[in-house]
């Protein structure tokens, strides 16, 4: 499988409502941070990958132009990779294939979003085609609440159990966010706070849902030769997987989500993982909605379909559990969408490098990063490991 590829550095902005800074400077902060972290300079970069959510989000089209200078990309070859919510992981995949193919040694990947300068739900409504779906699916919560209902009914999971497990996950992630200096929402919650919060789209309530965040993430990928030359801690890409489904929501089975299952299988095969629950030490899962995270556990083979709520209640996926998920606080606490998937990759890389600070999972050697996008259509995975 091509040449080995490593993550050699991660730069993030402090995510949140960043009215203190303009959009290009937000991008610049993440890029400057990764150059400082790696000791590299823009001259060392062979290519740049850029991506974000649709132009309507912030009202500027072709953002690779707008951020050419902030990304230090002037005069460089560029790829503009966009796959909706899964953009961040697709950006990481682009950097991976670029180096793995032998066409570059060092690639800078940059994802960004400034959601407080636009209307994310209005934008997402325009993802649905205009004739059949746009009028009733409108925005993200509508799609995801239908999927959650479909899943719990299909596997006969009592609503009370789903609610309880979702609330436990929410409390756990919100607690974890306090250990991540870059996380956006930091509130201490009780299970009752989550269960009694206002309904967004039944059965989803406020603390089951991610925020609108401003933020950027920059990750530098390198070939084995370059990574070894730098002599720093690296995270190796062990597997990449991606699958996409069709536009019409009713046409595929979102309760057993074939794109999520397929993407994970592809990545596991490359990484030689046969029992993910045992072989993974930590996972950074794209969880804009609590319910959905449980479905991902099942699709990724952490447990059988219908079992995730029981295991959540047993604490298997909590920060001190068997397979800690989203120790960064996850998407639930921080969601600058175009950056979000790349943040998952960055966080997974930091975990296997042992550089995740206060939210480090001790001894993590193998980590999974994931992102999802479209109308429940796209799932992308990257597995990172501490050893080549």
């Amino acid at each position: 499988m091509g040449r080995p590829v490593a993550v050699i550095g991660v730069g993030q902005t402090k995510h949140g409502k960043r009215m203190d800074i303009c959009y290009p400077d937000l991008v610049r902060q993440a890029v400057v941070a990764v150059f400082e972290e790696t000791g590299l300079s823009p001259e060392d970069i062979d290519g740049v990958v850029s991506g974000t959510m649709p132009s309507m989000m912030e009202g500027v089209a072709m953002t690779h132009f707008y951020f050419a200078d902030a990304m230090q990309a002037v005069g460089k070859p560029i790829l503009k990779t966009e796959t909706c919510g899964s953009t961040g992981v697709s950006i990481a995949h682009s950097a991976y294939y670029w180096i793995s193919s032998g066409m570059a040694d060092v690639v800078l990947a940059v994802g960004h979003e400034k959601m407080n300068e636009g209307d994310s739900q209005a934008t997402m409504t325009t993802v649905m085609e205009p004739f059949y779906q746009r009028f009733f699916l409108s925005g993200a919560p509508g799609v995801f609440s239908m999927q959650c209902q479909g899943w719990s009914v299909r596997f006969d999971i009592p609503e009370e159990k789903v609610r309880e497990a979702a609330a436990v996950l929410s409390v756990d992630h919100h607690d974890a966010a306090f250990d991540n200096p870059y996380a956006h929402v930091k509130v201490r919650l009780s299970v009752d706070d989550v269960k009694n919060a206002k309904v967004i789209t039944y059965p989803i309530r406020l603390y089951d849902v991610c925020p609108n965040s401003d933020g950027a993430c920059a990750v530098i990928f390198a070939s084995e030769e370059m990574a070894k030359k730098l002599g720093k801690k690296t995270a190796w890409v062990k597997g990449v997987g991606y699958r996409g489904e069709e536009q019409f929501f009713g046409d595929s089975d979102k309760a057993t989500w074939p794109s999520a299952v397929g993407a994970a299988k592809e990545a596991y095969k490359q990484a030689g993982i046969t029992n993910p629950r045992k072989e993974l030490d930590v996972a950074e899962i794209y969880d804009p909605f609590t319910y959905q995270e449980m479905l991902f556990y099942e699709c990724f083979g952490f447990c059988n379909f219908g079992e995730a709520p029981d295991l959540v209640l047993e604490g298997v996926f909590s920060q001190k559990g068997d397979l800690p998920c989203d120790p960064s606080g996850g998407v639930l606490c921080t969601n600058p969408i175009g950056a979000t998937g790349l943040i998952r990759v960055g966080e997974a890389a930091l975990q296997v490098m042992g550089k995740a600070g206060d939210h480090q999972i001790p001894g993590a050697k193998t980590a999974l990063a994931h992102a999802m996008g479209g109308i429940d259509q796209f799932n992308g995975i990257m597995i990172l490991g501490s050893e080549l």
Partner: protein
Amino acid sequence: MPMKVGIVSVAQISGDDSKDNFYDQAYWATREALDKAGLKRDELGTVVSTASDVFHGGISCANAYYWESVASFLKNGTRQDGESLFSLYYAAMRIMSGHFDTALAVALCKGSENPENDTITHFFTDPFYQRGIGLNETMAAALQMRQYMERYGITEEQCAKVAVKNLANALRNPHAQRKGKFTVEEVLDSERLVDPLTELQCAPRSEGMVAVLLASEDKAKKMSDKPVWLKGYGCALDGFYLGDRDLLKGQLQRASSKAYKMAGINDPRKEIDLAEISEPYAFQELLWYEDLGFCGEGGGGKLIDSSATEMEGDIPVNPSGGVLANNPYVSRGLQRAVEATLQIRGQAGERQVDRKVNTALAHGTHGFAGQCHAVVILGS
């Protein structure tokens, strides 16, 4: 190139406003490329498409809309925005990485469902400094043209000659939208859009669904009698603010030098047999000649005067009619690669040049005054 990647088959559906819907057009182009190679959908490795959320009929996350129409259902695929030659390059890299044997690059743009191109290019501007003055791609090009004429003494007539040549070439291309026998005077007398640019010197808004199937060396040789090989690629992005850039010394020289180096080309004028380049504005073809090394600095006007870039010349440029004849904004770069491939194979029909084409160049650009360039060298 660390590994040989070949173009196995190509397909294009393009031209004027069509009554066919997006899904059908996207499917037909994809299906044609697969059928020509005898490849079934489930045998295809990966799909890299290019489409833009702004040139996409008001539907965001373009890939979410057409995913299953371009053979991607439950496949590992991805999407590029802006420039469709990005897709060609990325698809080739996916093969070179050893993960896939075959890859489909597709570009999708249905102009008839979009607003005017410049309504959209206006949104390439930042909201603070440039948007308020109404900047768009045609305005940026007009500034560039004026500067080009003043710095090098290029005349309006020389610029118009590009439109005369390309629109006449397009008469032989069934995939072109705008075509005709025009005189230099008619080009200059057409409606003045943004001074000094006249209508026939500015590209129209077209449809373009374009598909290119790529394969690893072994596979390509099995799947096609005439695989066309990817020999070189170069790309370079320019800075954001128009006023910060030297519009006459942009990034194309850098992009083409990289592609030439990779392909082992030292004298492009001699070693390249044919070029398909993106000239959304007539004068840009002259400026790009210079940056591509077909002539010296300021020599673009003389080169067109010499007839060297005509169909019968020693370096034919845009025998298809180029972007002036057909402009599906995000698909235009990949469409150039399709035309270059057909010429190398001798399958370009009436627009086939009357000489052996061994090495051809395809070029794509998007943004203001050549804000980003991509160059591909293809060879027999």
